[in-house]
């Protein structure tokens, strides 16, 4: 006799049910869940979480009541050979009650829902504007000139993948898209907002305390939709001012006769067609202007002026920091996370393995439409970064050059 035969069929069902229930319970116990809307980190996300709890509790009560009545009906009135009960047609009083109760429940849910939606859509209290533009498969983030955002922004700042904001400041995200519909979602700071080509949609963000808040595109947007990530880095106003100053400082050319200097020339030859580095000049002293619109379907490629002030790249899909250094920044307490982030990428912390791999063959790391033989639909324009067939020496030079971009 096998061991399973010692259990009755009922007890076996109970065991299976218990295992499933425990499995479902365990699934909600993830330690590292940075995109958890049930851990709101700002007033907008908090209002969504509060509303969700209200709906969840009410729906739970309704569910329990309905299932209880159903189970009672099933077990108490199951067929035991008794006579068929009297068949009646309708009970007006009961039907009216059973109509009014759900209507009242729905009204009870609708009032706070509409109120929350209206509050989330009200942008009149924002103190900082940041433009977000989605394209396959990364987010461009630019800070227009304005009096808001702390002490104001006198000249535009442009970055990608990681948005830096001051804490306790309502930020207005003005978003659009250059190709297909994308969706901006930082679960711990607010709900989703679709970014649609030709339209400008808004989303408010506010963080209560410094930290790194992860997000992801939530509208299927093509081959690498799953690799279109982003983060919001919230920091103290003082740290934010330091970050802004760093983003608009003048370009510093690498020292002559260094690997980085060779990398600058390689960058000009290989990368500057699409990627802009502000302040970069040619031999005649003329600014080098990228023309991604000539090669890329979306007409844009990430600005790499201060790449190493960020700690992710390629649509925030890969780390510029080694795992240990990443942990130092991402798991830093609120008091020091801004300071850690402002350190940027140091030579010791550079995740050169992933960066080199990316420069060696980007489409192998992140699926993109870059095969020259399959670009008829876009008249030869790529969607993503193609394989540039760089030599190992060129990769060494570029890494050295990019490492100074901070």
């Amino acid at each position, binding site marked *: 006799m096998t061991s399973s035969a010692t259990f009755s069929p009922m007890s076996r069902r109970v065991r299976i049910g218990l295992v499933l229930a425990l499995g479902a319970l365990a699934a909600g116990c993830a330690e590292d869940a940075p995109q958890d809307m049930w851990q709101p980190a700002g007033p907008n996300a908090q209002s969504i979480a509060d509303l969700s709890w209200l709906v969840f509790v009410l729906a739970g009560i309704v569910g329990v009541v309905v299932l209880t009545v159903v189970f009672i009906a099933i077990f108490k009135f199951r067929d035991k050979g008794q006579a068929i009960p009297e068949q009646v047609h309708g009970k007006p009083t009961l039907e009216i009650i059973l109509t009014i109760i759900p209507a009242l429940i729905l009204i009870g849910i609708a009032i706070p829902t509409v109120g929350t939606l209206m509050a989330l859509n009200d942008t009149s209290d924002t103190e900082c504007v940041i433009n977000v*533009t989605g394209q396959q498969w990364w987010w461009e983030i630019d800070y*227009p*000139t304005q009096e808001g*955002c702390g002490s104001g922004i006198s000249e535009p700042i442009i970055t990608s993948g990681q948005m830096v904001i001051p804490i306790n400041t309502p930020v207005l995200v*003005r978003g659009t898209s250059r190709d297909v519909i994308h969706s901006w979602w930082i679960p711990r700071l607010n709900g989703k907002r679709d970014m649609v080509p030709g339209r*400008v949609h808004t989303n408010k963000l506010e963080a209560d305390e410094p930290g790194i808040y992860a997000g992801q595109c939530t509208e299927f947007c093509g081959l690498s939709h799953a690799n279109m990530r982003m983060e919001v880095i919230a920091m103290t106003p003082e740290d934010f001012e330091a970050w802004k100053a760093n983003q608009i400082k003048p370009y510093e050319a690498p020292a002559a006769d260094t690997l980085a200097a060779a990398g600058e020339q390689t960058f000009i030859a290989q990368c500057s067609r699409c990627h802009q580095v502000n302040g970069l000049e040619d031999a005649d002293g003329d600014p080098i202007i990228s023309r991604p619109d000539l090669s890329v379907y979306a*007409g844009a490629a990430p600005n790499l002026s201060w790449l190493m002030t960020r700690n992710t790249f390629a649509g925030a899909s890969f780390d510029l920091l080694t795992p240990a250094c990443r942990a130092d920044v991402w798991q830093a307490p609120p008091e020091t996370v801004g300071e850690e982030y402002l350190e940027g990428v140091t030579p010791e912390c550079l995740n050169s393995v992933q960066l080199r791999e990316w420069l060696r063959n980007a489409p192998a790391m992140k699926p993109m439409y870059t095969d020259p033989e399959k670009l008829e639909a876009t008249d030869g324009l790529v969607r993503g970064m193609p394989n540039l067939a760089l030599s190992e020496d060129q990769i060494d030079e570029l890494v050295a050059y990019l490492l100074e971009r901070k």
Partner: protein
Amino acid sequence: MFTTGSKLLIGSAVVATITAIAYGVTQDGVMGTIGLASAAIVLWFLAVLNLFMRDNNIWADEIASVEGAAAAVPAPANSVWPFAFAFSAAVLAVGLVTYQAVFVIGIVLLLVTGAEWTAQAWADRASADLGHNADVRDRIANPLEFPLAAAIGIGIVVYAFSRVMLWLSKTNTVVAFAVLGGIIITLAFLFAYRPKVSSKAAAVVIGVGALGLIAGGAAAGLSGERDIEQHETTEGLAEEGVDICTSPEEFEADEKASQSVAASAAVAVTITLGEDGVLTYELNGPSAEGADAITLPRSNPNNVVFRNESGEHRRLSASLGTEVVEENGEEEERPFYMCTALVDDGGAQNITMSVALPSITAEDGFYFFVPGVDSARLDLFVP
């Protein structure tokens, strides 16, 4: 020997087999061939099974059942649908190796003739009474045939009418429309006045009218469309090198321009020229106002709405550096402007700007201005 139902399946299996071979020989890729071959195998299997079952859920050796089965009833021999179905399959096969349009027509014909053949075959098994079978067939097929025929008929009439209207001159279209409307109303009046008019007379009138329209549409379609006058636009004039964007004067492009903009969520920025001759702008949210420059994303269509509250006709122009144009085989660099048409006082107009280059490419940057109003200037950053 062959039952009615098996004829359909055998025919379909033959078509699928031929098509699979034709596709496999003429086209790249194996998926289409695999799909068609799979269809052929399944259809052959069903055909053989159906033949063995004698169109019914009975065994072939059950003599009594076989003799009483519907398949035992001799089916009417004459039907146009097998031929039409085969023709459709041929059209589809030809389309596979020639033009996509032919292939699509083949699919449509195949579906229609297949449905008709199926309905016919199903009705033929209903009884030995041909009249009854015809009624059965009409009951199942007419609800599909009549709307489809009506849709096709309406489509032909509309298309033919549109060809005639596009062929006539702009003035004559009005005359033709009025005359045609008058004829239709007159005939309708006559029919209404004499409700006992014979259906034959009505059919003749409608038939003649439809034929006339189709013939006219065909003739007009062959003659081509009339020349449609293209109005000048500010964009077109600017591309031709006309200094419209720097001029406060009125051009032809200004006369035809819209003076209002529908409410839209897609506005990137609204720029207003006030009575004081100063440009102000408005973005979503109070935090977006107040700075003395606008920032717009690069390589992205940005809708900029210009509101004129200056009391005069004014246009909004944007200076976007320089552009290189080819003229007489030579490249020439000249200032690059975009602008609205002249906007009346109190009016508004939208301009969609997609700027491929950053503002640092222009020596004095990008900026909005209003020709004729020196004080109206607003810097534009494109990062």
